[in-house]
């Protein structure tokens, strides 16, 4: 299932990448969250959800994100399962 969602996202934007691969300072749009990720629902409750814009503040593990004006830390493993693209692409 996660493969098909990823494939769809890749079709939408060639710039789609995992969040863990992005650089500090990047302003990004969340494209998809791996449905198998156990904390997927918690991420969405924290407003890290599809279509939302976030800024990557710190690239070291754990990553630091600016989400709607709040700071959210997530580990690299989790970030690797979140697909994003440049917010300007949307």
């Amino acid at each position, binding site marked *: *299932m996660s493969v*098909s*969602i990823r494939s769809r996202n890749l079709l939408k934007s060639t710039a789609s990448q995992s969040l863990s691969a992005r650089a500090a300072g990047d302003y990004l749009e969340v494209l998809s*969250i791996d*449905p198998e*990720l*156990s*904390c*997927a*629902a*918690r*991420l*969405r*409750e*924290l*407003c890290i*959800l*599809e*279509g*939302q814009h976030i*800024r990557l*503040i*710190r690239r*070291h*593990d*754990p990553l*630091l994100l*600016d*989400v*709607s*004006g*709040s*700071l*959210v*830390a*997530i*580990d690299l*493993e*989790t970030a690797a399962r979140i697909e994003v693209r440049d917010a300007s692409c949307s």
Partner: protein
Amino acid sequence: MQAAAEQESTVQSSTTPEAASSHSLRSRRIRLGSGSGEREEQVLKVALIGKPNSGKSTLFNALTGMRQKVANYPGVTVEKREAVLTWKGRQIRLVDLPGTYSLNAVSEDESLVRDLLLGLDKHETRPDLLLLIVDAANPERCLFLASQMAELGIPVLLALTMGDEARRRGLALDISELRSRLGAPVYEVCAPRGEGLKELKDALLSAASATQSMPAWSPAGVLASVLEQAQQVPGMESLPSAGARRQAALLLLQGQLILPAAGEPATAEKLQALRQRLDAEQPQWRQNEAQWRYDWVHSLLAAVRQGQSASQARISAVIDSVLTHPVYGLLVFALVMAVLFQSIFSWASPLMDLVDGGFAWLGSAVGSLLPEGPLRGLLVDGVIGGVGSVVIFLPQILLLFLFITILEDSGYMARAAFMMHKHMRRSGLHGRSFIPMLSGFACAIPAIMATRSIPDRRDRLVTMLAVPFISCSARLPVYALMIACFIPALPIFAGFTLQGAVLWSAYIVSVLAAIVTAFLLRRTVLRGENSPFVMELPPYRLPNWRNVLMGMWERGRLFLVQAGTVILCLSIVLWFLTNYPKQPQIAAQYDQMRTDAAIIYEPGEQLDARLEQLDQLQAAEEIKASFAGRLGHAIEPLIKPLGFDWKIGIGLIASFAAREVLVSTLAIVYGVGEADESSQTLQDKLKQEVDPVSGKPVFNVLVAINLMLFFILACQCMSTVAVVKRETNSWKWPLFMVGYMTAVAYLVCLLVYQVASRIWPGLA
């Protein structure tokens, strides 16, 4: 009575039929007074709910003051804070629920909130009203929670907190517009200054019976029909409202086993089929609810938010550029931890000495009032001694929680966990495990209590089982005695001596033992996927001193009441083992010797010295003949291969009360009387002790090192066992801990003694 009946009828006439019927079920009466004159009064149950760091506890403290009581929720270790207050003749029972983001629970605390609100809690009734805290400076996630809560069939009242902080950032919320768009009451409060509390309490009385019209999420497409089908799961029918049933169905589809039936194969299969249908026909179903709620929140905020705010994240990020910097951040962190460690380790000492002295005085005062006999022994040595062994930890616990609460309230604790996560994860621990591990250097008891901040059950258990290996302050007297006696003060390097290096090594070995334990547990009995690290970092704030002091006191009180009960019982058992059976012939023999001494010596120093010596010898004889002494002899064949004789065996048994008891027990066994680790007489006795069979000294360098190793690795602390029992609500894990630690200690000591005594026979 009449007023209560009128209120109830008002409630039923003004709420929606569903809310009214559930309200009548929820209505409770408490009996006041007794006999024929008793009166009944309806109690309004109000639950405070909010996301972490939204100011919920500050508001609860401001509303309830010292009336609050802290206990555990039945069957779980989650703290339950509640208070009953009377306002305008009506009793209000306020319950402070643990912080949560939604009904989707990821920790024990959050599961409790979910079960209570969905009506799944068997011990607690649903509240009549939810007092939902909205952080005005950061309202998005609070309003997300509000939109979910509004669908549960429980009236909601919103309290806006952090208004000052929002205004400082140029942000304000139009409260009347918010009220009208939400269709629910909204009140602004400033809990630290007590502003808006009267109005809020007035509103509590009326809000429970008010009609509410907050917009509700309406699932679209296939999800709607699948949710209907999921509501056929057995047990759903008992949920009190349609909203609760729909939320429960969604949680079941998300894989949360909130109903017992969901674990049954047939139901699990049906749910899996529904999930597969959704994945095939509506792949975005998992984001549907969150998407709708955030769209609603953002449109609501667009209408009610006034002014432009500087991003909270950007302000905090400036501070974080230093405090969470990979290099500077760790330096600041090391400094903060050094202060924390130092405070627990040394600042608590004068207070602990005071407590110790106080109990010694109490013991002697009670002892002087009672005649010699078993009752005096039980009260003085068993009860007062046992209670003293618990209360002596209180200064450390209070200081630890003072610092922890300050760090939590200021927002720094979340940063500490954030910075340490990567390093801790390598050994199978969580970022939040760091503070408990560090606190373990002072005492395992507050350290184990501090594991409550770890959300994942496995991570918390691993931390709880690893912490007792960390060298606590109670081990220090044992190390000090052994090092002073048997390790020479040879200079090694730049003023450092061999004694210092051995002491330092003891601490390093304890840390390594904790890390290896965590690593092994995470790969064996507690294996499983690493729990993800997802954490909202709160903004930096000045701690609220009322919160800090009340939190510190309540946690200390809870420790005394709950852990203390178990420790007291075990102390009495240990007292019995070291004092029984009584040996009248020994007492008679020493009484005769005292009489002889009084004839031989003139009253004065010589007679006093002889009488003191006889007291010490009698105590040594009596403990040898006691159950503990017999146990020491019984375990001698088992501990002989470690280099320990039966006298050390008695010390090992007695020191299960507390590790430092080893020193005083050895002093009794060797007839020295009262002594501490610095006693030259005790040191001389240990050095001179000879094995009657082999003629060799009982103590040597190897035995000393092995005894230190045993104390590093074995779980020689009943207080730790009691606290782990309390925190896990079962005997399974404390017994596992005792078994595991004892086995590790025994095997390591056996290996070290047997190998070292063969390679370096001179050491033994």
